[in-house]
């Protein structure tokens, strides 16, 4: 298997940076999973698609807007009226292909096209609020839910994977620029880049 090369390049600088007077407020990491697949349903088929994705991944996934699920091996969340972003291991595409018939919808492999960046820590909401015009408070954005939003030209599909942990899926070609913005936004809180 050929290893994928991270697009972050020299912009990825492990270690602590920024204002560390109160310790790093966030950890930043690249956490791109082996497989990222966009699953899209035909009108009226989103529930069937959610069931199919659930069956293939073992996730408890609902078809409600913004819904999502987080598991050990896989995650999924709604990114549009008929769409989920599903992540998992190397066998994800094969499993989904088996589970999702053409009558339900289609699958598109984005394993190379999207990069997952993780922002975690007590100041994660604060840092992300600098970049996105959505409400990151736990009451408004519960764990496992997803949001599709944008920071200027950078589309981001965001899942809350823990009380103070968010995984952001961005276009690969823009990942380095966005990473730099993310680091800059994190300087005030202090940040640690972890592998």
């Amino acid at each position, binding site marked *: 298997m050929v290893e994928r090369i991270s697009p972050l390049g020299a912009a990825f600088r492990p270690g602590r940076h920024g204002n560390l007077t109160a310790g790093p407020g966030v950890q930043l990491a690249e956490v791109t999973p082996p497989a990222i697949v966009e699953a899209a349903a035909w009108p009226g088929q989103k529930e069937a698609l959610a069931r199919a994705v659930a069956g293939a991944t073992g996730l408890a996934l609902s078809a409600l807007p913004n819904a999502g699920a987080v598991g050990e091996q896989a995650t999924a969340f709604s990114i*549009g009226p008929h769409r989920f972003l599903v992540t998992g291991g190397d066998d994800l595409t094969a499993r989904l292909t088996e589970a999702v018939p053409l009558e339900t919808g289609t699958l598109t492999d984005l394993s190379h096209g999207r990069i997952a960046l993780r922002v975690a820590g007590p100041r994660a909401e604060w840092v992300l609020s600098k970049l996105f015009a959505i409400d990151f408070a736990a009451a408004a954005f519960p764990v496992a839910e997803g949001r599709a939003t944008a920071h200027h030209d950078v589309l981001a599909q965001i899942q809350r994977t823990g009380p103070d942990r968010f995984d952001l899926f961005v276009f690969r070609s823009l990942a380095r620029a966005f990473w730099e913005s993310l680091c800059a936004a994190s300087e005030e809180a202090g940040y640690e880049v972890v592998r």
Partner: protein
Amino acid sequence: MLIPCPHCGPRDVQEFSYQGDATRKRPDPASTDVHAWHAYVYDRPNPAGPHREYWQHIGGCRAHIVVERDTLSHEVLGAAFASDLSNQGGTRP
């Protein structure tokens, strides 16, 4: 200004791309009525008051939404998925 996306909830206008008048009817694709095509492509009601219009949630779920909004006050009066309200006129091909 906030646009109430039926999928994502209310979002700032900066996430949306405006696509204009949503009352125009696209003629039947096979139609050769140039006047009807001309009206569809060029003419707009452009009311001062409630206006039905398309917004695409381009910085979000990418759905097209039909929004009713007052052009005098910018108050949003309602929103629905465009896919539930096809603007294709004539017979369906």
